[in-house]
């Protein structure tokens, strides 16, 4: 059995008095892609933000790469190998593709160059656009750049919020294919996406969330067939 990279246990998060996460427990292993599914407002984004440290937990615990990370600041978690790509991509439009990658890289110049090379090998389209400013990229290319940026450090787990949002079906396929390759190479991916149809084929397991809780979990095929998604939406 492969090593567990991330464990979240009984996580509770609140926005004021509104409970956004209600005793949520999940687990991600090396060489595995896991999806968080569910309708708007189910708590997917909140869970991802709690994992990267942008939303504090009021109860529960999180371990990443064998260590408790609850008390670490977001940048400390990033340095331990937690990569994150936010919803809406958030690339720097005025910077070139290379610069977008460089700003996220290691301090060591040689290491950084090697990382960029690595990203370019994984996503050849970025090499062809190396000097193009971010704003010139299509939505799908921007999403790939955002994922590439999350890979600029030694990343043990990459966390993606709505990678398919606003992309055409063809681009969604391409983005998810690249993610599949990353996982095949031994990385781990945790993604939250509404587009279950696009996400399920590339993940091994999925958690279905509803109003802040995990209402179901299982293998990707099982989740796709069982009518759980319909129940998650309509109750």
């Amino acid at each position: 059995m492969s090593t567990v990279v991330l464990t979240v246990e009984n996580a509770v998060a609140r926005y004021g008095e509104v409970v956004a996460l209600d005793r949520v427990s999940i687990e991600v292993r090396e060489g595995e892609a896991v999806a968080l599914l569910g309708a708007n407002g189910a708590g997917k984004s909140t869970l991802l933000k709690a994992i990267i440290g942008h939303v504090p937990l009021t109860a529960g615990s999180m371990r990443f790469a064998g260590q408790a990370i609850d008390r670490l600041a977001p940048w400390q978690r990033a340095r331990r190998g937690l990569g994150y790509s936010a919803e809406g991509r958030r690339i720097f439009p005025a910077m070139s593709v290379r610069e977008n990658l460089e700003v996220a890289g290691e301090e060591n110049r040689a290491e950084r160059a090697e990382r960029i090379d690595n990203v370019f090998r994984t996503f050849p389209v970025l090499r062809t656009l190396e000097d193009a400013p971010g704003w010139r990229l299509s939505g799908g290319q921007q999403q790939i750049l955002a994922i590439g940026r999350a890979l600029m450090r030694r990343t043990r787990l990459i966390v993606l919020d709505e990678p398919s949002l606003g992309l055409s079906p063809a681009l969604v396929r391409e983005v998810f294919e690249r993610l599949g390759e990353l996982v095949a190479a031994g990385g781990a991916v945790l993604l939250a996406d509404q587009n279950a149809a696009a996400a399920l084929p590339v993940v091994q397991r999925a958690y279905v969330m509803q109003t802040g809780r995990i209402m179901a979990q299982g293998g990707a095929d099982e989740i796709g067939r069982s009518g759980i998604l319909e129940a998650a939406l309509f109750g």
Partner: protein
Amino acid sequence: MSIPSRRHLPLLAGVVALAVWPLVFSSAYDLRVFTLAGIYAILVIGYQFIFGHAGALALTQGAFFGLGAYITGLLGAKLGWSALATLPLSIMGPMLLAVIIAAPVLRLETHYFALATLGIAQILLLVAIRWESVTGGANGLPGIPALTFLDVAVPGGLPMVLFVWSVVALAGLFAWQAMRGLYGRAFHVMRSNELLAASIGIDSARLRAVAFLLSAGFAGVAGALYAHTIRVVSPEVLEFHVMVACLSMAVIGGRTGVAGAILGAVVLVHLPEWFRGLQDYYLIAYGVALLAMIIVAPEGLAGLLGQAAGTTPSRRAGRIAGAVAPATGESRFRAEAKAAAPLLSVQAIGKRFGGIQALRDVSFDVRSGEIVGLIGPNGSGKTTLINIATGLYAADAGRILFDGRSLTGMRPAAIARLGIARTFQAVHLVEEMLAVDNVAVAVAARRPLRLGRALTRPLRDRAMQSARAEALAIMDRLGIVEAAWHRAGGLPHGTKRQLEIARALALSPQLVFLDEPAAGLNASEQRQLAGQLKSLAEGGLTLLVVEHNMPFLMSIADRMVCLDEGKRIAEGTPSEIRANPAVLGAYFGAASVTPGSRQ
């Protein structure tokens, strides 16, 4: 008027102290400083209109002050006019300038607004220095006569102190009377959230313009009195330090209360005097004292003293609640169900933001008394559609008819007054205001708010009482009347949500847009809300509800409309929507409803 209670003590003590001061410290110099403190108090009371009540960082108050002083100086010293003529002109001059600059400047956003107003002040300063033939240039205009009305002169010293402080009292009374009732609360709503203000029919642009004019007028009075006190005007009155002093006084004394303006002016004018003994170090001590005051009393000294005296609204609650019996009010909804014609007709609406087509050819109808659910995944265009219907955005294509009338081109406040109310996705309440007043302001905003009406209110403010009574009746209907006399910010989330609905109902609307009303409510609160919304619809109200909580929405909706990527993809009864594969596809991707077709 009630017997002065404990909460009036600081005010009484302050008035007594102000009255005794000039009699005790009666050296000529002390009296002159005290006169200046009064003049600054008038300036700051005026500045509170735009800076405090309207919440706009205008940096023109010093310029208005200088202009008032120059008008008095020019007409008094050069032409020998009496104060009977120069004083009104010194008020009108700055107000005229305010009218001229209001149109281009008041629309600007915060820091641009501050910069633009600063620029205007600099232009006036340059004119005063360079236009030597008229203004006397850097030397200014000497020989301004003492204040004289119909041959009766007000000599310097104690008479001038009394005159200036009488004007302070009048100015304070004016500001207090204008702002103590619903008019002042409308300002409070506006400065806390302009979007919200528009949604309940408050015309922010108008309120801000009125506040700007009042500020200018008060600054003109202060400038004229300053010229008569110092008897010389030079470009110094237009320099930035006057503006800085005025701003500091408003921040340190308090941004909105008259007592704060007076306190700020008296303390800041006297602070250099008190620290004079420190000689070279006095500026440092002055700075430290200012900093300390800001840290100790971020709400201003007046707020600090009020807290010390225990002036909290809940103490007053019982009394006012007793005075205002909750009205037994029947539904006031103007619901004349015209069975055939739809109340709201969305016709081929299109909207584009940059490269994103947020809405594309969306059409649907809402009939009177119906509850229609508007659903769709994130980014499908639901809120954009509401924002177009309520006038916040303009559509690129199509039109929306309300009761047969096109809403195109109408301002949000006008649409609200037409009978369309809304609530917001996130809770938008004026947190520091009483819950009942959050609703009462919306009751008041059904009629255009007018300064004149506010100024002529009797002491026992019946308009306020009847607005509160109506607010209480609405809150009673929603079962939240016991929260009425608490500050809105301290209420539980569920109550806040219902308070927003109460505020929407206060507009006597025919149609209410509810943006995620069930968000964050627990199961029993959701059931309660569902029951209330259904009974409102039975009473003739029409509801368009955006909601992600499908079990909740399906339990109340007569029909549902589903948007996806800006297009209307489905419409029907809840059970039809549930059975429609396109809806599940919109939420979870096209293939998720036909398992096995993947791979």
